[in-house]
């Protein structure tokens, strides 16, 4: 009898210990993030959430193509490996059409008006007007970068039109071995990203409102002609050479992403909103290219409620303020305009203005293919292999082939 009682007592104790251990087992949330500074930012702020919600957050930093592949491959598993995924904004049409993300609106998420509208719109499907599937985690928009000394050497002000930029490039190019304007003409994503702001400033685009391909419009031809003139009065470099040439005063101007030049308070070059006008008299169009990193919750997450909570935390104003010293670029107006942060990071004002006046790349799941062929034809045009008219006509035919 004693033995039986002892055994029963031991079993009860083991059971109680086991259930206590299980009860206290913290939940584990896995974030598939873009490697680099984004991982540092998440790691810098995650402790508070872990403490408040009894969970452990693991952050996987992945290179861009790897990240997209892994998210896509995991999306077909019944139980996903990730609870939050980071997404480059042009991927949104692909991932939402494939039903990979949890519909945040259906989960009770109400849009936060503090997000810059152009950033918030990126996470909606359909773009801008639909339900919210992802929230903007890290802001970014292309800017015009210039070397103030080089501009001063030809008595030029920062250009507010593309004709103005060309005039400066002409004045600078060849003077003391300097380069007027540097294009990023590498085939594919680089040249498309570098040309689109010029195209938009001229009032052109890849598609019209009814998704007809209009890359051979007169506006597009004029924009490409100007782009080639900029090259004739400058050079075609890859990213590292662009940054070093403008920063070192070997070149006057280029377009680029803020992180290429700006780090904290310091910037190795002057920066301004990308000109949205063709010339001083023409109307102003939004021209900066927005490129936010968004965060969404995969549909197959094991912890949907906690993941949505974490997503809200990581994109909150408090977190964005706390993450600013780690290099995070905000997506909220209140953070951009925070007086203390604005003093610390003077580029916030320019970045906010540029983000508000930015354009998104066409919202189609086929953008990767379109960008590829458009990039080839733009490269044909700037290399002189094809005339501007022929290159844009071929680009139109190739894009129509993709979307038909």
């Amino acid at each position: 009898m004693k033995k039986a009682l002892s055994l029963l007592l031991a079993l009860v104790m083991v059971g109680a210990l086991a259930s206590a251990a299980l009860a206290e087992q913290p939940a584990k949330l896995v974030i598939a993030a873009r490697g680099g500074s984004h991982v540092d930012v998440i790691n810098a702020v995650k402790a508070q959430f872990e403490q408040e919600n009894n969970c452990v957050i693991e952050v996987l930093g992945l290179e861009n193509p790897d990240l997209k592949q892994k998210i896509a491959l995991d999306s077909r598993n019944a139980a996903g490996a990730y609870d939050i995924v980071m997404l480059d904004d042009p991927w949104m049409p692909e991932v939402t059409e494939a039903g990979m993300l949890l519909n945040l609106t259906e989960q009770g998420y109400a849009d936060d008006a503090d997000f810059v509208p152009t950033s918030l719109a990126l996470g909606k499907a359909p773009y801008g007007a639909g339900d919210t599937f992802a929230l903007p985690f890290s802001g970014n928009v292309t800017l015009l970068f210039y070397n103030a000394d080089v501009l001063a050497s030809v008595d030029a002000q920062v250009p507010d039109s593309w004709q103005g930029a060309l005039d400066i490039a002409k004045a600078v190019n060849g003077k003391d071995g300097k380069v007027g304007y540097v294009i990023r003409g590498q085939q594919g994503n680089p040249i498309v990203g570098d040309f689109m702001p010029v195209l938009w400033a001229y009032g052109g685009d890849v598609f019209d409102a009814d998704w007809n391909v209009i890359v051979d419009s007169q506006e597009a031809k004029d924009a490409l002609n100007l782009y080639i003139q900029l090259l004739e009065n400058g050079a075609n470099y890859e990213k590292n050479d662009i940054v070093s040439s403008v920063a070192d005063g070997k070149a006057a101007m280029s377009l680029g992403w803020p992180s290429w030049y700006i780090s904290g308070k310091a910037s190795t070059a002057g920066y301004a909103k990308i000109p949205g006008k063709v010339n001083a008299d023409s109307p102003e169009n939004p021209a900066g290219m927005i490129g936010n990193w968004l965060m969404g919750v995969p549909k197959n997450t094991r912890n949907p409620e906690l993941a949505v909570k974490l997503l809200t935390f990581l994109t909150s104003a408090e977190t964005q303020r706390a993450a600013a010293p780690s290099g995070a670029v905000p997506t909220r107006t209140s953070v951009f305009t925070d007086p203390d942060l604005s003093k610390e990071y003077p580029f916030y004002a320019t970045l906010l203005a540029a983000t508000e006046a930015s354009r998104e790349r066409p919202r189609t799941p086929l953008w990767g293919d379109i960008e590829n062929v458009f990039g080839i034809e733009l490269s044909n045009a700037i290399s002189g292999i094809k005339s501007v008219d022929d290159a844009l006509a071929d680009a139109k035919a190739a894009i129509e082939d993709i979307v038909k």
Partner: protein
Amino acid sequence: MKKNNTLYAYLMSSPAMLVLTVLSVFPLLFILWYSLTDYYYLSTRPPQFVLFDNYIKLFKDRYFMQALGNTLRFTALAVLFEVTLGLMVAVLVKSFKRGQEVLRTVTLLPTLLPPVTVALIWQIMLSNNYGLINSLLGLFGLGPVSWLTDVNTAFYAILVIDIWQYTPFAFLLLYAAMQGIPQGQYEAASIDGAGKWAQFHYVTMPNIFHNVVMVTLLRVIDTFRLFDKVNILTKGGPANTTATITQYIYHNGVNMFKVGYASAASVVMTLIILFLAAGYIRQNFKARERAQKR
């Protein structure tokens, strides 16, 4: 007895056959099947059988045909230079009385580097602003040349990098083959009055010809898969002049998840390599048959 031996042979080779089936035969069959479907990885509906639609679309795509042309041209030039230079260096190193070991090791270094590292090293060297090559040109009042963005130079820049990296590979195999040539053959040729060139032509080449063919084949297969250097240095440009088949497959299969279409391109690539290698494989089988008859 013979039956037992056959059974034993099958039993012994079965693990290898199993591994080969799982790792090579199944994936190949899957790729063949996928190439006949419109399989899009992100699609919510199952793949549809489309017969040869992917192949038709592939050969109608001017960018694929351009990538195919570039790849064939690149392979022909790269292999020609790599094998020829590799052979010349092997003959040269073998002629040295001292320092063969040191030279062999030093020469091999580029081949030991991963292609990504090689691409990044050359990207720095070819840079417009701070690159070594443009700086050297500057000393003579030349340049700077946009090696990787100029349509006249990009293809050849990648070609030179590939030759730089893989000539040592050809050198190593041919140098090793030369070690097996009996010294007596050279002595006999020398007694018969053969000069250096005649010795190379009548002694060295016949002895290593089989190895030259093998090195050529290995380089053809490897060069046909050129990807990293192009992807890092030029992204296929300028004007698609450095685009390769592998890059085309990568874009469609990995970036765009068009598994069916990318599979068709992979099948085409495999068939071309098989066609190029067919002569060597046939020759190998014949050689084996001859050896078995002896």
